[in-house]
């Protein structure tokens, strides 16, 4: 299976990954509609960190032994048995933020737009490569086979 890793030296902080992550998780899957018509606007599942000339984009690592899954008391987080990807069921989530408390990457955010729920990377539901990797103009996000 493949996972996303960061090469911060070549990240330009252009935020294209974030923009296309929003589009990918919109209803229309179209840039203009996602940003101008969908209300509330979909949230990015990727986090850009920036300070001075350093920047990088971080998303869920889809851990083999995920702390978030252990801590999720509602049963909203689950593992896709085929792909090992850690997924989140919005309907089941109660917004208790246990996952926010335990994820060592800080890769789960709070979606406070309507019903309060957790929000995280779903690896674009099997898209190969995920959109953030595909749209990165400088290969600052890499899609790598792991064990």
């Amino acid at each position, binding site marked *: 299976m493949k996972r996303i*890793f*960061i*090469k*911060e030296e070549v990240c330009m902080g252009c935020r294209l990954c974030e923009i296309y992550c929003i589009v990918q998780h919109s209803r229309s899957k179209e840039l203009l509609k996602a940003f101008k018509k969908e209300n509330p606007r979909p949230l990015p599942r990727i*986090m850009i*960190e*920036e*300070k001075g000339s*350093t*920047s*990088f984009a*971080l998303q869920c690592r889809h851990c083999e*032994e995920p*702390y978030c899954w*252990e*801590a999720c*008391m*509602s*049963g909203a987080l689950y593992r896709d048995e085929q792909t090992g990807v850690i997924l989140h069921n919005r*309907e*089941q989530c*109660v*917004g*208790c*933020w*246990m*996952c*926010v*408390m*335990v*994820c*060592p*990457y*800080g890769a*789960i*955010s*709070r979606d406070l737009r309507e019903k*309060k729920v957790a929000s995280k990377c779903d690896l674009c539901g099997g898209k190969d490569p995920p959109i953030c990797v595909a749209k990165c103009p400088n290969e600052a996000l*890499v899609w*790598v086979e*792991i064990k």
Partner: protein
Amino acid sequence: MEIVIVGNSAGAIGAIEAIRKVNTTLPITVISEEPYPVYSRPLISYLLSGEIKEDRIFYRSKNFYEKQHIKTRLGRTVTKVDFEKRKVELKDGEKIPYDRLLIAMGGIPFIPKIEGVHLSGVYTFTRLDDAKKLLSILPSVQRAIVVGGGLIGLKVAEALRKRGVEVTVIELANHILNLTLDETASLLLEKALEKEGIHLMTSTTVERILGDRKVESVHLSNGKTINAQLVILAIGVIPNVGIFKDTPLQIDKGILVNERMETNLPHIYAAGDVTQSYDKILKMVRPLPIWPNAYHQGKIAGYQMVGREEYQYEGGFTMNSIEVAHLPIISIGLTQPPSEDGYQVFKKIDRGTNTYRKIILKEDRVVGAILIGEIDRAGIITGLLREGLSVKGFKKELLKNPFGWISFPKHLRKERLGKPK
């Protein structure tokens, strides 16, 4: 080999999911006193408040046991474990043999020995049936007393308030959540709760519950008497070890286990709120009745039972995430240093926005934190504590919001987030 699990909550499911990752056919039997498929105990307050319906209380899918090939004995009570004959004995006479046994029986509410606790209208609040009972009597309740200002007490108080009940929380200590928060944080929360119309009475306790068969009022140690139709005892939970008293199983407050989740008896494992765990911050063995610890211990027990010995318990620590009175609150580890000696404390408070952030360090390592309001990326701090990483060089960054991996030394970030070598 037959595996039997007594209990059907986080610890049990952690074990099942670990075992099934390794072995999909090994016979497993789950026994639980409660008749329900696995549900989330912490979610019963959401059911009481009306935030969720009953179908959402279930923690795994309806066909979980079937899919995982688990035999169940639900709604059946274990009366005894015959450690010599290796059999679990049920109240109805059935005896279930095991080769490996996991005790994951959880905790039970602590009931104080005060006059009137057996009156009708006095409840505890840890199980689904408790929530259902409360829902059924709600129409006849105008005033309720919640005894205990801990996590359960506050969640139940808030739920009752949302249902239109006048609620008073009685707390013995001088602040609510005194085991979880510090004074500053408690005060913030107390204000927010009062704004929601929840009454708080601290530094006092219920001396007597009065009534003729049914609760009519409570008499407090401060001399006051309050009328109420409902009293909820939420003083705390204790390990559910009753059936193991006077057996060879080693128990202190909870069942004692090693880093493999083994008890002192061969082939007997224990996990979750029924145990006592090594707290790696306080460096002592004590009950750690929190969901993530239960699941984690269950998982280790599961792996150990099927020979995956590399999975071991490295010690836990207390942590809680709770949202009450619209305030998200996360507390991790030691939130009030026992002395000024050797600890470094960083704090930032904004009373206007109800945000508070406190980080406690010892020898340049995070040993505790409180985050109120702005809780995003709290897990990074939890991770630092869990791993005992030195934060020398970026201590003050920990107080910032947003805070993230950008604050870390580059080598550490590359090691964690970069392509594995």
